[in-house]
């Protein structure tokens, strides 16, 4: 005896009228509020600054910023400007698009642990952003050479910035 006994279900190919297509979402679009913390963060990006917030009670620095420390559950104390430089903590090479279609070129993306003058961070909790890594190939990902590499934010020219995470084009490898 092997359970489950005779599990039921009809493989799709066997059915006469398998699906009915309907565009549920259609032309609906979301307009997400940026919030107090990320609103100011985006304004900072337009000026070429990466902003974060600090909780003086536990010493955490939040990038992306929040208005509260979710650990001490109190309001953060102040804003700080992070450096444009940081360290790659993890990195991958994407050969597919969001749609699952094959990408024309592999895209290198990773998490960057940012430097903040006057603070130091361990591996456990740190100011970090998801972003593209440029100046590196998928082979550099596979060889794991990029772990620990130093990178620097490459901002778009001021007139092209519009208050978006994409105001940073990518983080460029400055020292492998």
């Amino acid at each position, binding site marked *: 005896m092997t*359970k*489950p006994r005779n599990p039921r279900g009809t493989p799709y190919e066997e059915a006469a009228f398998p699906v009915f297509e309907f565009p549920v979402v259609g032309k609906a679009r979301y307009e997400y509020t940026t919030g107090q913390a990320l609103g100011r963060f985006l304004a900072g990006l337009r000026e070429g600054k990466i902003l974060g917030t600090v909780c003086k009670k536990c010493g955490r620095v939040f990038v992306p910023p*929040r208005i509260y420390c979710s650990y001490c559950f109190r309001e953060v104390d102040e804003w700080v400007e992070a450096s444009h430089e940081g360290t790659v903590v993890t*990195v991958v090479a*994407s050969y597919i698009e*969001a749609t*699952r279609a094959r990408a024309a070129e592999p895209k290198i993306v990773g998490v960057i642990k940012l430097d903040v003058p006057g603070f130091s961070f361990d591996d456990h909790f740190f100011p970090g952003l998801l972003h593209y890594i440029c100046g590196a190939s998928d082979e550099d990902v596979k060889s794991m050479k990029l772990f620990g590499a130093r990178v620097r934010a490459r901002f778009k020219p001021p007139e092209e910035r519009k208050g978006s995470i994409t105001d940073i084009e990518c983080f460029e490898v400055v020292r492998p």
Partner: protein
Amino acid sequence: MTSRNLNFKHRVAVVGAGLTLFRRRLQETPQELAWLAAKQALEEAGLTLKDIDCVVIGSAPDAFDGVHMKGEYLAEGAGGIGKPVVRVFVGGATGVFVPIAAWWHVASGLCKRVLAVAEEKMSHAAKPHPQYVFRYIWDPIVEKPLNPNLLWIFAMEMHRYMYKCGVKKEDIALVSVKNKRNACGHPSAQLCDPNIKVEDVLNSEVLVWPVQRLDVSPVSDGAAAVVLASEEEARRITDTPVWIKGIGWTLDTTHWTNRDLAFPEYVRRAAEMAYRMAGIDNPRKQIDVAEPYDPFDYKELHHMEGLGLARKCEAPILTREGVTQRDGDLPINPSGGLLGVGNPIAAAGLMKVAEIFWQIRGEAGARQVKKPVYTGLAQAWGDLMQAGTVVVMGI
């Protein structure tokens, strides 16, 4: 920390389980799938819907089935009409959260017999691909504009784990090979492959390095169900109830770019909660069989470490030595897991609980592990690498 959180009125047992087939596309509607699994679980327990006091439903994002209020919608097929019904949701961790929620319905004394049903139909999100629906999980301000694919975060976690623990892709691929072979003993399985080799995994399509197609579980439709009962009722229903000995669940922050991904803290905390309740202080010795969540092959290793079934960075070594095979000292995912049986998200998690139920009762047939089973564990994980859910079961 409290010694053991034992402030509940009733011990709770699982007395029946049911599953549908797991397939890429099934013709049945979500309601019909829920009904097939629920009916089988009731029949196995020798009960009818009249015997059920309350219903708990679990299903992951509404966007897959393409139905909002999925809990209310599924209630029809899950036996919930005219009864107290609740739907729970913690992303991929939902499947193991369903029996946890059902447990507190019974443990509190509120309900005596509870039907718990999990369903997922990923095939509805057909165009361009079910993966696309996952974009709603990302932060809309700082992440979505980068046009991410959900696989990115897993690839990042896998790569960080490989870097920190010095693990090779070949070692991780062994998990996929084991689970897809194990699945050949499972009547519901979508991806049984008795001949699969490590090279097949390493030669499969590269999606987001280091994740390749055979490192990741498939898109699936399916449903699962279990019946839970209080001690008094369980003893009336069956001679072989399987007790829920411990439950645990926790959430970490959605801000996943701020923390180390090499170790699943959310699983460790959930496991500690469940172990405290179950009186387990040495899981490696006291757990006989485990079904950790394996939507990716590295995740099985990662979760074994979070559950304390292996030390940090030790799970790949245990796997290479055959310890985690069905005839090994610590069988892991004897069902075939998500990599082998399939991954209809919430249903896949509950399938793991059903597997431990059948393993403890000695009813897993071709999949029955070699060693005697007294205590087993099922675990799931979800959202932005945040949610951990753990159930410890035993005789």
